[in-house]
């Protein structure tokens, strides 16, 4: 590698170890630290409305969920259309326990970090179970298996009394060092908790991809027979990917339940699964940075389309319910356009920008 680790512009790796570095230059690390600092300190200077704090929190939750889906879809090459159900497993782990032991129970209000990890583990268990068909199935058949899980989840939640037949199950307010987190601090508190979780999980995924398992997952995606011939176990790699995806989804679900102060059936439907899929595709499959861009882009698109559909709903005659179709239309269109013209997602634009900045002004 170049002697100057601040301004290296080309590929100077001389060992695999160097190639596996998280930050290839010190400048990359510095920029990352600056971004991170900005994300932590901006609330001290900017007074964002509660509405947009909620949007921001939801984006961060989606980022955690998309980490998981990207592992399965982007790095593992396995299709899953039941991701919202895994998120739901996490949310209902917290909510149903709150229903049983009481929403104000210490475990729910004070032991929330444990609950979040527990929900992640529950998601992982379901992920491993649902991933079992991946030992035998691929492509469309695997899609059907994950779709079945989504349907089973919706039916179970919607009909069993234990889950209040899909009606909202309340979760109490959490406690922090300063006492109960009240309504005024709720969204800011969860912003920081989510941000820390996003950073930890992000490093987790990045490190995972540097491990033997991570590399075998990518190898299995590229050619599972070749990976098998090289001594890897494609089946286990796939099942493990589903387990990990379930873990991230479970964590996201638990945090969603805490943020919404409960869980209701409507947040984990097939529509949400498609939305996670869209976030992964638009962000960039198989790219860690795609996990940030995808959720942000889709949430912002969603907001804009909401305004457009609302405006259209007001001016169009009530019999002509065209406005209803605007949102799904835009949604589908964005996915198709990205698949056609930018299959590597927004992450690729980021890569191009970085490459351009690296060369500017002709740093050789």
């Amino acid at each position, binding site marked *: 590698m170049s002697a100057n680790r601040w301004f290296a512009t080309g590929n100077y790796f001389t060992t695999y170890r160097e190639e596996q570095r998280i930050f290839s230059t010190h400048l990359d690390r510095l920029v990352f630290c600056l971004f991170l600092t900005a994300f932590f300190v901006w609330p001290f200077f900017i007074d964002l409305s509660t509405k947009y704090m*909620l949007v921001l929190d939801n984006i961060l939750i989606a980022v955690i969920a998309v980490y998981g889906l990207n592992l399965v879809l982007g790095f593992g090459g396995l299709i899953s259309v039941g991701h919202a159900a895994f998120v739901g497993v996490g949310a209902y782990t917290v909510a149903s326990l709150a229903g049983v032991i009481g929403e104000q129970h210490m475990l729910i209000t004070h032991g929330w970090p444990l609950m979040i990890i527990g929900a992640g583990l529950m998601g992982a268990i379901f992920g491993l179970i649902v991933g079992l068909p991946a030992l035998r199935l691929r492509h469309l058949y695997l899609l059907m298996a994950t779709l079945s899980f989504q349907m089973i989840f919706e039916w179970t939640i919607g009909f069993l009394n234990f889950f209040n037949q899909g009606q909202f199950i309340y979760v109490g307010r959490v406690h922090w060092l300063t006492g109960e987190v009240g309504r005024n601090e709720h969204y800011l508190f969860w912003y920081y908790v989510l941000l820390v979780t996003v950073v930890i999980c992000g490093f987790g995924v990045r490190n995972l991809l540097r491990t033997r398992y991570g590399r075998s997952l990518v190898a299995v995606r590229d050619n599972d027979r070749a990976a098998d011939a090289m001594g890897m176990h494609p089946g286990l790699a796939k099942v493990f990917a589903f387990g990990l995806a379930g873990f991230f989804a479970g964590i996201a679900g638990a945090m969603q339940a805490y943020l919404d102060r409960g869980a209701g059936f409507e947040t984990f439907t097939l529509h949400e699964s498609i939305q996670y899929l869209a976030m992964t595709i638009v962000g960039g499959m198989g790219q860690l940075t795609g996990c940030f861009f995808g959720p942000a882009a889709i949430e912002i698109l969603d907001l804009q389309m909401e305004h457009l559909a609302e405006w259209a709903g007001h001016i169009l005659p009530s019999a002509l319910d065209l406005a209803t179709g605007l949102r799904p239309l835009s949604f589908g269109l964005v996915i198709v356009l990205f698949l056609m013209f930018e299959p590597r997602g927004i992450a690729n634009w980021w890569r191009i920008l970085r490459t351009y900045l690296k060369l500017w002004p002709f740093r050789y």
Partner: protein
Amino acid sequence: MKSLKFTTCIMVAAAVLMMALPVSAVAGNVYKLGLSLAITGPTSDAGNPYAKGVEDYFRYVNDMKLLGDDTIECTIRDDKYETSITKRNFEEYLDMGIVFYLNYSTGSTLALKRDFDEVKMPTMPASFHAGNIEGSDYIFLPIASYSAQAIGLAEYLVRKHEGKTPKVAMFIHPSAFGRGPVEDIEKSIKAGLDIEIVEVVEHGQDLDNTAMLQRWKSKNVQYVISQTVQSPVAGMLKDASRLGLVAGKFGEKDKITFLGAHYTGGNDLIALAGDAAENFYWTTSYIVTSEPGAGADAQLALAKRYGRDDKAANSHNYANGVMVAQVAAEAIRRAKARGNEINKETLYQEMLEMNGMNAFYPVTTVGPVTYSKDDHQGVDTLQLYAVQDGEFRAVGKPFIPEYTEKIKK
């Protein structure tokens, strides 16, 4: 030179002040309200006219200066029947400083129930689910709950039925909205209501109901009480008509008489089911424009004034929207008349005192709106309607179901 500049500045500032002062002196207070509902997406067929009803009535209040120089500014946002969007809208309204909130769906009302109580926000949803007001001090149902409506229908059929215990099937929406009345009907049966529930069917998105109807026929079901939205009921009625199962008159032997609660009926049902809707019995607390009266005239006049099409003008959900706006405006008017500052606390108090001699009589309902500490259902009175010659016609006088009180004990 400096002094000339200074004088000019002072004169300009004075002129601006003089132009602005009369406006601010005349302009009254602006009371902010919020409504979040499905203008698009699922159930938008009900939400769209509902939103227009709310919008038109508040415009009327402002145009006619019913609150003097004060005005109501009600922001209406589309939530597409998604709880997450409703939550976001509600948070935005709180940032805007609303004093009264109008919500829509059962799911979002249940999900936000704790928030309404925490911020002490008087709230009126478009959902009449009895569970909305359980454990909540700040939610006020506009009219009798779905449970009360279903019990009212059951009581009516018991009164009109000839012969042994009537066999009844329930056709419900697969959600909290649909399931709400089932338990209360069962409680009423235990309390002495003489009907037999043969089957409770949670409908899916089936395009054909032949099997279900034939099964009911084989079980001698004579009445079907529906608690869902219009389209599945219309599908069921069409299939029943094709099979020759629809009763020609109430309780006709070997036929089925179909009945339904608020969101199953209205002109949309007739438009969807056509002739098959004949003899469909429907209950609500709202007036309908096919029945002549002062309420119908007022509703049509309001819709005409603001250029609404016939579909919206004749919708019972337009009346629904007008009514909640009337109640909110009335609470503001009363608080103002007492000389109170208009905020969510004073409006909440006004809602609680809306009973007895202070009951409110909007023209769009068949009975008075009454609320108190223990009563959060506005209009307790129901009216039964039946489709005759393609229009909903009143059947009998408005009534209050008896078993709603009996099952509370």
